[in-house]
C-alpha cells in the first residue's frame, strides 16, 4: 500500500491510494459518512420567538449549523456514564441565542450563538438563521450533542467524501492523426494538442466518461481510457467540524472496533453451540 497526499488544507484532502481494493475504500468512505461522530445542535428550547419562522424551522436550521467538535472531551450520549436522557457536561454543550431587531430589519447570524464552551462554536460566524423586522425577538437555548451521520445528516463531519479509480490514458501515436476532436470534446480538459501530438495535460481530473474514445475517427479508437482497479483517488471535504486528517484516522479506528466487536460475537456464539 502506498499513499500520496495530492491536496491538503483545513477542510479539503485528496489522497492517492495505491494497492488497495474497492471494498476497503468503500468501507472507509461509508464509515466516514455514517459512523464518525461530530457535534450538532440536537434540542432547542425556544423562550421567545416572534419571527416569521416557526419554532421547528428555526430548530432545524440550528441543527444544520456545523459546530467545531472536540472528540476527546465529549462522549456520545448513549456511551456517556451519566446515562441521563437530558445529558451532562460530558455529553452536552449548551448554546444560547438572544437577538432582537431594535433598529429596523436585520439578520441573525450563527456568530450570535453564545456557547458555554469556547471550543464548541459554529465553524462560520456568517450562517444566517432568521431575518427579523423591527421589534421581533428571538431568544432560545440550544443543546448540542455528539451524534453519527447514520442517524441524521447534520452529524456528518464531511460535506463530501468520494473516491474514483485512477485513470489510465493511452494514446496510440502511430494511428493518431492529431485531429484534435478528443481535445475538444473532453469536458474536463484532460487532453491538450501540442503541435501535432495529443498529450495528457491533467490526468487526475479525468472522469472516465470515454467521450474521447467515442469521438475518435479511427477504428478502433487511437485513444484508450481505462482505469487501475487497485489505485484510487480519495476525496474528502470536511464541514469544518473536524480536520480531515482526524476524520480519516477516526474512521479507521471505528472500522477496527466494529471488526473486533463482530468477531468477538461470532466466537462467543460458535463456542456456545459446539
Amino acid at each position, binding site marked *: *500500500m*502506498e*499513499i*500520496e*497526499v495530492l491536496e*491538503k488544507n483545513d477542510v479539503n484532502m485528496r*489522497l492517492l*491510494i495505491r494497492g*488497495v*481494493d*474497492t*471494498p*476497503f475504500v*468503500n*468501507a*472507509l468512505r*461509508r*464509515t466516514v459518512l*455514517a*459512523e464518525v461522530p461530530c457535534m450538532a445542535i440536537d434540542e432547542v428550547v425556544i423562550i421567545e420567538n416572534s419571527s416569521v419562522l416557526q419554532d421547528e424551522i428555526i430548530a432545524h436550521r440550528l441543527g444544520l449549523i456545523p459546530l467545531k467538535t472536540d472528540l476527546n472531551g465529549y462522549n456520545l450520549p448513549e456511551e456517556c456514564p451519566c446515562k441521563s436522557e437530558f445529558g451532562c457536561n460530558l455529553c452536552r454543550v449548551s448554546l444560547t441565542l438572544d437577538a432582537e431587531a431594535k433598529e429596523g430589519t436585520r439578520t441573525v447570524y450563527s456568530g450570535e450563538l453564545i456557547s458555554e464552551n469556547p471550543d464548541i462554536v459554529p465553524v462560520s460566524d456568517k450562517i444566517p438563521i432568521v431575518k427579523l423586522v423591527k421589534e421581533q425577538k428571538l431568544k432560545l437555548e440550544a443543546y448540542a450533542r455528539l451524534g453519527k451521520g447514520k442517524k441524521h445528516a447534520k452529524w456528518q463531519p464531511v460535506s463530501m467524501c468520494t473516491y474514483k479509480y485512477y485513470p489510465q490514458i493511452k494514446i496510440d501515436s502511430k494511428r493518431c492523426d492529431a485531429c484534435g476532436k478528443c481535445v475538444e470534446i473532453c469536458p474536463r480538459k484532460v487532453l491538450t494538442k501540442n503541435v501535432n501530438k495529443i498529450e495528457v495535460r491533467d490526468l487526475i481530473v479525468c472522469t472516465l466518461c470515454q467521450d474521447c474514445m467515442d469521438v475518435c475517427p479511427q477504428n478502433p479508437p487511437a485513444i484508450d481510457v481505462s482505469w487501475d482497479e487497485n489505485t484510487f483517488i480519495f476525496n474528502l471535504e470536511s464541514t469544518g467540524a473536524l480536520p480531515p*486528517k482526524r476524520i*480519516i*484516522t477516526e474512521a*479507521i479506528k471505528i*472500522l*477496527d472496533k*466494529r*471488526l*473486533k*466487536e*463482530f*468477531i468477538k*460475537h*461470532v*466466537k*462467543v*456464539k*460458535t463456542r456456545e*453451540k459446539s
Partner: protein
Amino acid sequence: MKVKILKRTSNELKIEVEGAGHTLCNLLQKRLLEDENVELASYDIPHPLASNSIIYVCTKGDVKPEEALRKAVERAHQMNKEFSKEFKKALKP
C-alpha cells in the same frame, strides 16, 4: 451488534448479524474470498431499511468456516493498520 447462527455444519456457516451493513459485510466477503480454503462467501441484506444482514461462508473442508472468518477479520485489521501507517507517513514531510 448481535449475532445469530442460522446454519452450521463442518464446512458451512450462515449467520445473521444485527447492525452490520454493506460497510462490514462487503469488506469481509472480499477478505474471505482471498482465502484459498474458502469455496464460497456471500452476504445478503434482506431488507434495505433493516440493519441486519446474513453472512454465508462455505469452506473446502480443511478449515472450519469460523476459523476462515477469524482469518478474514485478521486480514482486514492488517489492512487498516497498514493504511494508518502509510497515512501517517504520507502526512509527515
